[in-house]
Every structure is written in structure tokens, then in C-alpha cells.
């Protein structure tokens, strides 16, 4: 079910285009030759671990930092040197940056006040936004400090929407929120994206979060973009080991070439991989926990990839169960739906295996 593709958002020219954008701090290269096209109306997420340069990148996109090289084009116009307050874009900050001396209403009305909108009109717009974000109308006069974390998120979003930006940026606004509320707000944010039809550019270190909300995702590492694609593409065809590991818990087996097959360098076991790239010598086989199967007796005889080990531990993940299987010095994670759970006991000798086509092979 690919819902991202048929949106009306696939216009020809991108709303925001980055051409070989660099950012240096002294000798340190924070962002290196980043090329990106962000389409009108899409929910685009930049994902990367801390220190990957994603915050530096978004600061340049918003206008709080200037690129050291390259160009940022907004609807074809170069905006490298346009300061933040002159750009038709705005951002929801990681700390939210709600003004502590102003009420909820004054916060939301701030961009309108700056623009010189008359008070009555400002108030009307603020109340409209309060309604849209499911906040009670009497919050208008409430000090922001008295709002809960989730409410503050909504106020910050309302303030940004009051600005009516062409692109709305988000710098990890949900990172400090507890799990359940975060899950709810992720979906709410995606709903708001549909309602407003605006272009959202979101930054996070959580690929899981990106998957939930985004039309397209860019993965960043060490100041560079590693891969850009829809959530499906990123999940099914990660470009390298880093992207595949970023997705969540995976099993990585270091392998070398052994004729047309592969050899596990740790145990010497021969394995069958997916098709081998030209000139492949050494690399990593990545197997997702859910692609492992427990092989018992005749049923598993046809599976070419088998590892024999001990069932060391079991973890419950709610609807799924995870098993830790130890094979020699290596540890593997196997994941099963609850109804397909393994029926033996801890310390059982087990054989696990996987279909060669379901593993991913990377040279780096």
C-alpha cells in the first residue's frame, strides 16, 4: 500500500533545492556537498544520528546559518544570504522556544503582531488555530509555563502555522516527549500536514519516527546524504549497512567470498547470500530478526543457511517475541509473532535459518 506516490505533490520543480551545500566550522566539515530536492507539499524527513550534520543543515535552510559553499534555492530563487526573518519559512525548535513571558495566545499571535495585523484579526486567527490543534479556547490567556509538554508542542506548532510559512521546518520537537504521547503526536502531525497541505521538513534521529510520518526520507551520516527515498524504499532497499542498521535491530554477519557462496568469517560456516556483486570479496550480511526461522526436523532441511546454537533468552515486545540465540561467540536476534512463538525452553539447542533472498549483502 503505497500512499506516498499518488499525492498531488509531485510537481515538476522542487520548492526547495540544495545544490552541493557545504558547511565548515574552521577545519571541521559539518555538512558536505549535500544535494536535495524537496517537493511542494511533501512531508520530508532528514534522519541521522547525533553529529551527522542534520541540525547544521536545517539551520542553513531556515536562515540562521549561512552555507560555506553551494546554493539553496527556494522556488528557484537563491536564498543563501537571506536572513531568517526575511524568509517565508519557519521552524518549530527542539526546545520549542515558546516565549515564557507571553501567554499561549500572545505566543501564537506573535508572528501576526510582528506583521502589524490588527488585534481583533490576530485573536480570531489564534482561536482558529487553538481549535485546529484541539486546545481549549480559554488557553488563549494561559501562561505557556502552565501548559503540559504535549500542549506546549501544540502551541509551538500553532505559532508556526500562524506565520503561514511556505515550508515548515521541525528540529526534533518530539525528542523530549515520552513514548506514548510521542506516538500520538506523530500521527497528529501527519494529520495536520494533510489538513494544511504545506511542505513539512522534519529532522529526527529516529528512523522509526520518520517512517510513521514521511512521504520521503533522507538519511544523513557524517555530513553527507547517504540515501533518499520513500519509507518503503529505505526499508526494503537500504543502500548500505549503516542504513540497514539504522532501521532498528538487525543481525550483521561478517562474510567473505567463498566461490559462489559466502563464508562466515567468525565461524567458518558456509552461507548462501543474495546474488553477489561483481568483484565482491568481503562484506556484511544483514539479516532482520523477523526473517530468521527456527528450523526443526524435516521442514527446515531445504533451507541452505543454517546456524546451530543455544536459546539464551526471550524478550517480550508485546505482539511479538524476541529470542537471543548464541552461536559460538556470536549473538543473534530472532523475532516471532506471539502466535508463532517458540515452544521449547531456554538453553535448548536450536537451529535457526533464513531464506537467502531475504538477507541483504553490503560491501561496506
Amino acid at each position, binding site marked *: 500500500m503505497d500512499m506516498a506516490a499518488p499525492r498531488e505533490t509531485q510537481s515538476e520543480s522542487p520548492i526547495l533545492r540544495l545544490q552541493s551545500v557545504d558547511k565548515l566550522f574552521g577545519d571541521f566539515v559539518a555538512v558536505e556537498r549535500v544535494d536535495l530536492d524537496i517537493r511542494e507539499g511533501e512531508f520530508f524527513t532528514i534522519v541521522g544520528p547525533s553529529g551527522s550534520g542534520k541540525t547544521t543543515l536545517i539551520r542553513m535552510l531556515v536562515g540562521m546559518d549561512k552555507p560555506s559553499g553551494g546554493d539553496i534555492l527556494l522556488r528557484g530563487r537563491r536564498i543563501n544570504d537571506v536572513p531568517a526573518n526575511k524568509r517565508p519559512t519557519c521552524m518549530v525548535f527542539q526546545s520549542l*522556544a515558546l516565549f515564557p513571558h507571553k*501567554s499561549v495566545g500572545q505566543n501564537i*499571535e506573535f508572528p501576526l503582531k510582528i506583521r502589524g495585523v490588527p*488585534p481583533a484579526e490576530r485573536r480570531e486567527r489564534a482561536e482558529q488555530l487553538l481549535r485546529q490543534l484541539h486546545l481549549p479556547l480559554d488557553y488563549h490567556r494561559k501562561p505557556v509555563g502552565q501548559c503540559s509538554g504535549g500542549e506546549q508542542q501544540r502551541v509551538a506548532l500553532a505559532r508556526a502555522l500562524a506565520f503561514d510559512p511556505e515550508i515548515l521546518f521541525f528540529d526534533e520537537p518530539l525528542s523530549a516527549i515520552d513514548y506514548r504521547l510521542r506516538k500520538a503526536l506523530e500521527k497528529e502531525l501527519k494529520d495536520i500536514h494533510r489538513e494544511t497541505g504545506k511542505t513539512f521538513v522534519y529532522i529526527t534521529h529516529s528512523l522509526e519516527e520518520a517512517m510513521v510520518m514521511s512521504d520521503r526520507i533522507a538519511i544523513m551520516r557524517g555530513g553527507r546524504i547517504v540515501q533518499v527515498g520513500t519509507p518503503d524504499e529505505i526499508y526494503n532497499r537500504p543502500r548500505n549497512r549503516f542504513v540497514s542498521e539504522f532501521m532498528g535491530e538487525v543481525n550483521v554477519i561478517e562474510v567473505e567470498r567463498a566461490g559462489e557462496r559466502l563464508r562466515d568469517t567468525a565461524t567458518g560456516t558456509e552461507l548462501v547470500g543474495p546474488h553477489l556483486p561483481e568483484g565482491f570479496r568481503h562484506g556484511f550480511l544483514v539479516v532482520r530478526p523477523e526473517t530468521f526461522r527456527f528450523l526443526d526436523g524435516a521442514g527446515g532441511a531445504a533451507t541452505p543457511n543454517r546456524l546451530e546454537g543455544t536459546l539464551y533468552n526471550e524478550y517480550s515486545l508485546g505482539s511479538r517475541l524476541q529470542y537471543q540465540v548464541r552461536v559460538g561467540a556470536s549473538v543473534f536476534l530472532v523475532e516471532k509473532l506471539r502466535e508463532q512463538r517458540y515452544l521449547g525452553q531456554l538453553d535448548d539447542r536450536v537451529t535457526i535459518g533464513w531464506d537467502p533472498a531475504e538477507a541483504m549483502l553490503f560491501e561496506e
Partner: protein
Amino acid sequence: MSAMSTSRPMKWLLAVWIGTVLVFLYLPMAAIALASFSRQRYFRFPIPRFDTRWYEDAFTSLSVRDLLWTSLTVAAIVTVISVVLAFLGALAFARYDWKGRSVYQKLLLLPIFFPQAVLGLALLLWYSALGIPTSWMTAVFAHLVWILPIATLVISIQVYGFNPAWEEAARDLGASRWQVFREVTLPILWPGIFSGALFSFLLSWGNFPLSLFTTGADSTIPEWLYSKMVSGYTPLVPTLGTLTVVGAALLLLGAYTVIMLVRRSRQARATAEG
């Protein structure tokens, strides 16, 4: 349980202790206030007859008016200059990260470590070396040398709690630098600036050692009090002493009122417009 049983005598002891401290701290001041209402020419206790004639004298005396005027002028000018400079200084101290910051932070505090009499003497030597005649104006400078670092520290405390993202967010939402300053920076730092001003005024108003060395022919109230105590006591001494304390207390009370009024008007504005 055990805390309960020990707390009763402890509470009594604490109450007695606090009471004693308060009495010893404030009784002398009360004595001065009492002395100012005495009819007697000489400082004697207990006071045989009460009178307000010294207050009448103080309010009609031209020299007292001069003293008040000098003290007030010095303190007012010191406050204005010190608030402006200390505000900028506090931003450099606590807000911005720059190359010489740690050196600046240490240098700034240096004058506080000088005994004020030493500082006053040093400044006096400088003035005469440079050929600057001493007057209340040179005292303004001397006060600033000592008060500015303190005001900077007071405001810095507020600046440390300032999230730079507030300014960035305001700017991102379209505000010009001036609008950011007026709408965000100033109102958030306002309490710190206000207490910095209050400190500056009170420290200058009550300063004696720096004034003694640097006012030249002019005289502030603390200087006058000292010189009259040393030679030629008059009952105007406790009178004027009481007046300065009352003046300082009124200033604090006024400041508190201003804070409450601003807070209330902000709330009212929040209710009305936003």
C-alpha cells in the same frame, strides 16, 4: 517520631537565637532613629524629651539640601550608566561565546577584590597624576569602577537562564533585530536589569570610602555623617542617617510596587489581547 520530640526544645532555641540576632542587628538602627527625635544636642540614651525640630532643620537647611542633591545625582548617574553598560557586559559575560570571554570574566571581577579604600586612594592618585580636578563627577567614575562589576554579575544571573532559541525563534517568525530586542530579549531579562539598577543605586547611595577619596570639595551624605561624627556632632547626624535609611527603604518599596504593577499589567494585557 524522634524528630518530633527533639524539635520542640530545638524550635525554642532557634526562636531565641533568631530573636537575639534581630535585636542586636536592628536595635542600633532603632537607637539612631530614636536619637534623631531627641531634643537634646548630645547623643545620650535614654532620651529625656522627644522632638521633631531636627527634621525641620534638616528640611530647611541649605547644606543638607546640597548633600542630598549630590548623593542623589551621583547615585542616579551611576545607576543609568551602570545599567546600560552592565546589561551589555552581562550579555558578553553570560550569553555570547567569544574568544576572550574567560579572561574578560576574571578581569571584570577584579575591582571587587580591592578594598574600597585602596581603590579610592588609587583613583585619587590617578586623578591628580592626570590633572583631573576631583568633584562629584570623579566620584561617579569611582563608584562605577566598583559597582559596574556587581551590576554585571546581578544581570548575568538572569542572562544565564536565557535560552538563545527564544531570540532565534522570534527572528525566524519575522521579527527584526529591534523587534526581537523589544518583544523578547528585554522583557525576559527585565527583572535582572531592574535588580541591577536597584543594586547600583543603593550601593552608590550608601558608599562612603570611594566618595571620601574622590568627591573633592563636594560631599555626599555618608561623607558628611562621618565628618560630623569625627568632629562637631550635631543631632542632624542621626536625623540625616535615618532619612537615608528611610529613603533607601522607600526606594525598595517603590521598586516592589513597580514590579507588581508591571506583572499585573502584563497579565491584564494577556487577558485582553493575547
